[in-house]
């Protein structure tokens, strides 16, 4: 079972505030996910190159040619808050 502190740590990294119930169910869910993934360790991977991508492609690149950007009104409209032509967010310095 994953430690309660580890769940809190991961939640903190993601700036998530969990209630006691959420914490408990998260602990249970994350543990079962990790256990499931651990089953991969049973497979013999001796001599097999790590796969970072399932499609055997390399060097998919684009030319350095500008394409139109979004109108600022459009991009800002996607955000919960905006001001002075910028996205406005709670100050990251503020404690959560």
């Amino acid at each position: 079972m994953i430690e309660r502190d580890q769940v809190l740590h991961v939640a903190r990294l993601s700036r998530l505030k969990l209630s006691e119930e959420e914490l408990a169910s998260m602990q249970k869910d994350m543990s079962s996910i990790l256990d499931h993934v651990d089953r991969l360790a049973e497979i013999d991977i001796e001599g097999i190159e790590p796969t970072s991508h399932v499609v055997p492609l390399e060097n998919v690149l684009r030319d350095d040619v500008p394409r139109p950007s979004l109108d600022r009104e459009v991009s800002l409209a996607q955000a919960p808050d905006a001001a002075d032509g910028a996205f406005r967010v709670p100050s990251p310095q503020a404690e959560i």
Partner: protein
Amino acid sequence: MSGATDEFEAVIGLEIHVQLSTETKMFCGCRLSFGDEPNVHTCPICLGHPGVLPVPNRRAIEYGLQIAAALECDVAPRSIFHRKNYFYPDNPKAYQISQFDIPLASNGHLGEVRIHRAHLEEDAAKMIHVGTSGRIQGSDTSLVDFNRAGTPLVEIVTEPDLTSGAQVREWGQLLRATVKQLGVSNVNMEEGSLRCDANVSIRPVGSSGLGTKTEMKNMNSFRYLERGVEAEIERQKQLVASGERVVQETLHFDPSSGELHSLRSKEESHDYRYMPEPDLVPLAPDTAMLDAAAASLPELPAARAERYHSELGIQEGAARLLSVETEWAAFFEDVLGSDESIEPRVAANWVTGEFAGELRRQGEQDPADSRVSPKSLGNLVSMVSANRVSHGSAKSVLERMVADGSDPEAIVREQGLEQISDTGELQRIVDAAIEGNAKVAEQVRGGNEKAIGALVGAVMKETRGRADGGEVTRLLRQSLGL
């Protein structure tokens, strides 16, 4: 400095972020810009909208390979991108695309400093912190400008091979000049297109271990970085001398007060949970790409300094000074090219000494923008070498040249500065000086050779500095029978 603190030496490594001067961002077609209205260069990719796919910019890869070649790195035959996860508003995806265990390039060097690695990544957005106090601390909301988000970066990490603030500045300037010469970045520290962090630790002299290091972030000039690093070395030495321990932390150096401040001391240890970026396929630079990068290399500052020193006989310090800025190197070479009788060493001294100094005094920086052409400076240097004008006169001629671009020949003619080269005329003035200062002349004849200075002064006064000091002394001694 007390004896105890001398027993420690500093160990410094640098991390340099270079913004590449491509037309578009690293993974999308938005234009790069500096100083535009906020958020006018954004799209679903650089805003991190769900479901979008990044595609690397070919030119950014090429620029990265050029940097790798300039730093004589090994290029990974196959490198991959990783996601570096962190939660902060400057990064809408909650991860930065970077490289992790297989960087683009590694194991290089520039001068005496080894390069650990150089990898590609993307820049974050710019935060504009607003609040009642106008300072970061205490503001309750922040504004985010995504124009910079996704700008291609090359991060260069050195081995901990540097040992002093002065070396950090000098080497940093060499690196900046090298990248600038490649033409792959504006390398402007004030605008943030080149950013340098320093990791500083100390250890007992002769030991090979590494002490606890602190990180100094984001100084906007190498001079400030030099001072900050020196201050931090001193602080660590004092700590250790008084029996305390260095704590790992991130520091900011305030150049105006000379003080070091700890940043984010409560921050937990970095936990970036790197994972391979599944949206990007591996990068496998082929022979054509590698050859193109190698072929694109111009003569780089370190090689140029070496050539100036070994082929032109210029003293090492002046050779480095001339080589580090392309504009100065070009100007110097044009001065040399303007007249083949000019001694490179003499020209180098004039360019880095009197000329650079006069430009500074008159508030100029770039020799290419000066009213003084390399040809006219070459002309002046030739006149001095041929003893047609004295060094002192030449300095005032140069002042005029820098101010209004006048031709040195014309200034010399106009102001009658040409040296008296007619020995007969000079002899008459020497004779007159001896006659007019009979007592002094007697003292000199009587063995007080130092007194000859007064006679030289009298001749120089009479000629208004137009005589060659050495020649005057020679004639005086001859006339006095010494």
